[in-house]
């Protein structure tokens, strides 16, 4: 085999195994040069009235800044450049653009409907897919600064994933329950879907299919090549494995529960999912039993390899840029648990003020360009 062919094969293998960073509408994993970037973790605190965005220096795990952004921040999304971050505010109905080099809010837009949720953005930073609880996604053109399309699904607009190639957007509506519908003024849909909606971004944001998943969709994550998706669903303490090309569930992982765990939370679901260790592992949370699991996903069905006690109500989980550190946000105990993927050991716990409820996170490799104007 020629050296050039070998390098192509190696590059393809690497791209197919590199994991993505997180659950809940995070951007893809794009390799970066640590010398030219500053790795920072952005943490939303849904219960904090002020200082509800915490920025953590990942190498030292020290808080470097706290900012006040729109109330009840929810979605977090960044393009490949990672020099900007879009955060939606459930309470205000806005999306804020943050310059991650300076860590300043540079723009705020409204008009995204009732309770904007977990968004995602195309790798080139052009189109932001912003779901609303009202059951639709707004496609926001960040250059024109206007909504250029609306995509309606069944259910309540909630999670979004865009593949690293910028080809497909996956929309994950919540099924909803009487708690959502008790606010009739919001007009939330009661269609209760068990499916993921697939949109072709390159075909003018057209819906091109659905993936049946058997129950209400919950946090998802895609591999870097966009071929495989792992996702939580309602009433499953574990996760599904989906072949995105076939638009089909191909396997299912379930937690090995103790008898007492089986006797509580029978209707619970796992929440928060991340790919780690060069795509070989998937980590996900058992919110009810305050545990986080690691699975080997090189085999099907995935094999449980570790189980960790964490803080109360672990709900969101993201890996570091190299996929070798895992951050688990535990809003019930206002803390974040940090794991070393290689040793499968807890590294540290970061505490937040009581009642802040650290929730959704994104880990970014922010370019070191102090004079750069934001996009």
């Amino acid at each position: 085999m020629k050296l050039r062919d070998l390098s192509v094969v190696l590059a393809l293998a690497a791209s197919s195994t590199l994991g993505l960073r997180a659950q809940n509408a995070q951007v893809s994993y794009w390799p970066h040069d640590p010398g030219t970037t500053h790795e920072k973790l952005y943490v939303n605190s849904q219960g904090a009235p002020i200082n509800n965005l915490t920025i953590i220096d990942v190498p030292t795990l020290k808080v470097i800044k706290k900012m006040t952004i729109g109330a009840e921040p929810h979605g977090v999304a960044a393009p490949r450049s990672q020099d900007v971050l879009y955060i939606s505010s459930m309470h205000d109905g806005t999306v804020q653009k943050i310059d991650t080099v300076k860590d300043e809010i540079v723009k705020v837009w409204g008009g995204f409907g009732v309770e904007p949720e977990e968004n995602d953005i195309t790798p080139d930073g052009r189109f932001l897919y912003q779901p609303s609880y009202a059951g639709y996604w707004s496609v926001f053109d960040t250059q024109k600064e206007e909504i250029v399309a609306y995509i309606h699904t069944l259910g309540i607009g909630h999670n979004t994933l865009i593949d690293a190639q910028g080809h497909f957007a996956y929309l994950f509506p919540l099924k909803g329950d009487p708690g959502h519908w008790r606010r009739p003024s919001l007009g939330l849909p009661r269609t209760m879907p068990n499916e993921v909606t697939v949109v072709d971004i390159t075909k003018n944001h057209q819906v091109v299919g659905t993936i049946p998943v058997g129950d209400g969709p919950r946090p998802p994550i895609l591999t870097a090549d966009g071929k495989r998706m792992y996702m939580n669903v309602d009433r499953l303490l574990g996760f599904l494995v989906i072949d995105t090309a076939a638009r089909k569930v191909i396997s299912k992982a379930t937690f090995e529960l103790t008898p007492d765990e089986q006797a509580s939370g029978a209707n619970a679901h796992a929440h928060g999912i991340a790919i780690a260790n060069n795509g070989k592992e998937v980590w996900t949370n058992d919110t009810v039993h305050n545990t986080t699991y690691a699975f080997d996903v090189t085999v099907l069905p995935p094999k449980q390899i570790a189980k960790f006690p964490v803080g109360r109500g672990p709900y969101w989980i993201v890996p570091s840029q190299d996929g070798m550190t895992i951050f688990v946000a535990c809003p019930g105990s206002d803390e974040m648990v940090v794991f070393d993927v290689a040793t499968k050991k807890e590294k540290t716990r970061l505490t937040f003020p009581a009642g802040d409820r650290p929730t959704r996170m994104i880990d970014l490799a922010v370019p070191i360009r102090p004079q750069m104007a934001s996009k």
Partner: protein
Amino acid sequence: MLRRRFIGFALMLLGYGRRAWAQLASATPGYYPLTHPIRIALDTVSTPWRQVPFVAEAVLPQTSPTPGRRVLMNGVLYRRETGDDSSALSALCVTCPHELCQVDLVTDEARLARMSDSDKKNPKFVCGCHGSVFDALDDGAWISGPAYRGLFNFRVGGITAGTVEIDEVEEETLSVV
């Protein structure tokens, strides 16, 4: 004509009757016996808002979709006001009915003041996951947030020889948690 009026009137009465029955049924939840009663010393709940945690167990009946399934429920017993009788005691399941996260009792005045959901500053249960708020003074009644109802209640059976006995749980708890 008279017969049509009579039938119409009868149907109307039937409709009202059904509605009244449904409201009555929903207002008085059924209770289900625990496998073993929970017994807690009365003097451990002599201080208002001091919680005593417990784990209760029930086994689903043969008529349920999963007969014989064992169900464990985390609860707390606490006193709302001072006094020796059981009327000031609350025993609640601390699992949020929304997505089954655990709720916490908040008594800190500064935190209570931050909650915009209610003018009342009495202690409240708050769900860490999605922020549902429940009134600790009113047996965990729903105040705000995505939970579809208040916290599930245990029944305090009575106080015997300085011991509080908890013997039943709201039936709906078993199909949710």
